[in-house]
């Protein structure tokens, strides 16, 4: 169970959400927008840890779990990067700055930034919208730069237009100390002079040293091949962390639908070490 | 004891086919024929577009009566739509009757584009019937009023 202060930060039931105000909307890619959310009286709705999620809802439309993409070191607001792919997300994409949404959380565990990851060299591997949960960790690490070793970020997407947070990647991450960013896109594209190819193969080409702890997030098929590539490169499963995602309703391990075996993704996850994932029945 | 001076104003939902009955309602309006404002018209492409669920849904959301209006048999814009609608509505209304929704609360009427007078008469009549029956309390969802 997580050690955060979730659901203790206000006196209603954990299933009852708080009202949040959308204070900024950035169009990241044609189908991804990043929403900045504040409490109505200003400031953050709650504190969270990198990798945690929150339930975002619009009354009468729906409710779904999204990872919090902003870093806990950001003291002013929370951000959610949301891809348009269903009823709720379609609605969210039509929102304007100043509109209200409802948020409850944070839920789930987090990447072990204060324990296992401390002092380690880190390798982040992300695909498409999978950067969202990792961005929280990357910014946390960069804001506490001296606590960690080198940082390598491998990030790929379908096309150059689908890279989320490109501005931040170029202006902050690429300039940070001991930090290397490797971008790739699936197919050649005019105006793109970077690497072309899928993330797993790019990873193999990079020939990174195996003294790193890896954090992977992206579409399931990418995660599968990345893990394969890592094993080939000599990484062990204990060195890699990933996040899982399943249908959720309650967010607190009670409604009974997001389990894989005896683990609930909302409560015992979403962050799992890859050797733990291997022990789960194949139903995700 | 409190006295309720407010007159009961029935909520009526009228599904009108686009080609005849809706035009009939239009004609009633432009000929300045009066019919109660509590009749809420929903325009449908054809009377056979009316899904039985629409009717239950109308009752759920607080309608006191539901009426379906379409072209006269033989005049359907899509040639046979209203024949199917006629069978469906006969059976559905019979079923509603069977579960305790008074017969007067449901009605099918064929109104052509030229029958503005008939439209207004029908509506006046229907509202009167419903007024006699009172509020629909059997097939509504109480939450709707909250």
């Amino acid at each position, binding site marked *: 169970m997580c050690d955060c202060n979730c659901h203790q930060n206000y006196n209603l039931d954990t299933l009852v959400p708080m009202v949040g105000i959308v204070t900024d909307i950035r169009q990241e890619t044609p189908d991804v927008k990043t929403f900045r959310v504040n409490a109505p009286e200003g400031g953050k709705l709650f504190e969270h840890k990198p990798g945690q999620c929150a339930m975002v809802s619009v009354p009468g439309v729906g409710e779904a779990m999204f990872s919090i993409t902003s870093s806990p070191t950001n003291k002013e607001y929370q951000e959610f990067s949301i891809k348009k792919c269903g*009823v709720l997300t379609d609605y969210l994409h039509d929102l304007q700055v100043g509109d209200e949404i409802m948020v409850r959380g944070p839920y789930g565990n987090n990447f072990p930034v204060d324990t296992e990851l401390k002092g380690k060299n880190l390798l982040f591997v992300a695909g498409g919208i999978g950067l969202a949960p990792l961005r929280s960790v990357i910014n946390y690490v960069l804001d506490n730069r001296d606590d960690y070793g080198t940082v390598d970020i491998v990030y790929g997407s379908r096309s150059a237009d689908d890279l989320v947070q490109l501005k931040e990647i170029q202006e902050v991450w690429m300039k940070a100390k001991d930090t290397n960013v490797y971008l790739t896109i699936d197919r050649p594209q005019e105006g793109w002079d970077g690497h072309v190819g899928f993330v797993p193969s790019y990873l193999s080409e990079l020939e990174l040293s195996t003294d790193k702890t890896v954090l992977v997030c992206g579409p399931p098929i990418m995660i599968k091949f990345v893990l394969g590539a890592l094993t080939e490169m000599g990484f062990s499963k204990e060195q890699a962390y990933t996040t899982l995602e399943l249908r959720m309703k309650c967010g607190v391990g009670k409604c009974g639908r997001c389990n894989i075996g005896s683990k609930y993704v909302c409560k015992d996850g979403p962050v799992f070490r890859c050797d733990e994932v291997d022990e789960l029945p194949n139903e995700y | 004891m409190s006295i309720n001076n407010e007159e009961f104003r029935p909520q009526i939902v009228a599904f009108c086919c686009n080609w005849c009955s809706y035009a009939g309602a239009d004609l009633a309006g432009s000929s300045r024929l009066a019919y109660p404002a509590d009749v809420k018209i929903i325009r449908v492409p054809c009377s056979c577009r009316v899904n*039985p*669920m629409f009717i*239950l849904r109308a009752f*759920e959301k607080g309608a006191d009566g539901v009426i379906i209006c379409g072209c006269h*048999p*033989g005049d359907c814009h899509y040639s*046979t739509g209203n*024949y*199917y609608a*006629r*069978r*469906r*509505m*006969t*059976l*559905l*209304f*019979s*079923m*509603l*009757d*069977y*579960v*305790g*929704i*008074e017969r007067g609360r*449901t*009605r*099918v009427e064929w109104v052509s584009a030229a029958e503005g007078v008939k439209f207004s008469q029908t509506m006046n009549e229907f509202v009167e019937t419903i007024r006699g029956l009172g509020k629909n309390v*059997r*097939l*509504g*969802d*109480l*939450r709707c009023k909250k």
Partner: protein
Amino acid sequence: MQEIISRLEQLFAEGKINRVLGWKKGDLAYNPEVSYFESAEALKDFVYDGFCGANLSKYMIQGSALEGVTAILLKPCDTYSFNQLIKEHRVDREKVYIIGIGCKGKLNIETIKAMGIKGITGIKGAEIDCACDELTVETLYGDKKVAYKDAMLERCHVCKGKEHMIYDELLLESADTLDGDRFAGVDAIEALSPEEKFEFFRKELSKCIRCNACRNVCPACSCRKCVFDSNKFDSEQKANVDPFNESMFHIIRAFHVAGRCTDCGECSRVCPQGIPLHLFNRKFIKDINEYYGDFIAGENAEEKGPLTNFTLDDMEASERR
């Protein structure tokens, strides 16, 4: 029963069938389950007795996707459902070998339990080969006698007849069980005042737990995705805070199968709360017969259903009784 098993073994041996869709012995006296038997050896668990009420027709929708020919055992009333499924192109006639089996009326364990009989450890007299009119129910609290007729499912009292509407071959004799008027229940309700009608259905439907067993067992409810499973719809299949939605569900479900419902009675049989759901379906059947001429869904696999058909001089809604 041995007759069926021998014949099935023979069919296996001749290579005419690849599997059998039938009933497997349960672990109590009254709970056989539907099962696919993949070989002649597997038939050792086969059973056909008074508690094999389940209509197997609907299982053939999935069965049609299997390799080879499936032998299916259909009671007379099940064949109506099967015809209907053929008409709707939901089963593949080529992949089925239909064995029409006789029926002596099917038993309802709920009826037996409602008589106050508890702790049932065995039931004698339910075997298909037994010509007895009486069941001996062995219980932890002593033996009880029950007339076979009194323990029958409601639908058997108003049996449509013991003739199979479709089959490749027939096995076993049937016994006539009809002793009631199919529409008596409907007539009784029709005679009530609106208040009483509403009261009656409220009382019955308020028991509904929205388990969807009636829908899922119904051979006419064969949509790949039910409208009540849609999430673009306020009252999905699950329980709502307000009771309106139960009425909605049952009225609409009955309407969706109107003209296609063969009155097989499975909905009433499976309802865990014993709601007489057949009363909805029979109301439609009665109205259809009365207004548009007698029609028996599933009598054949060709005739147009009454709701996909019309005549120019159908009666108006206002003219109904």
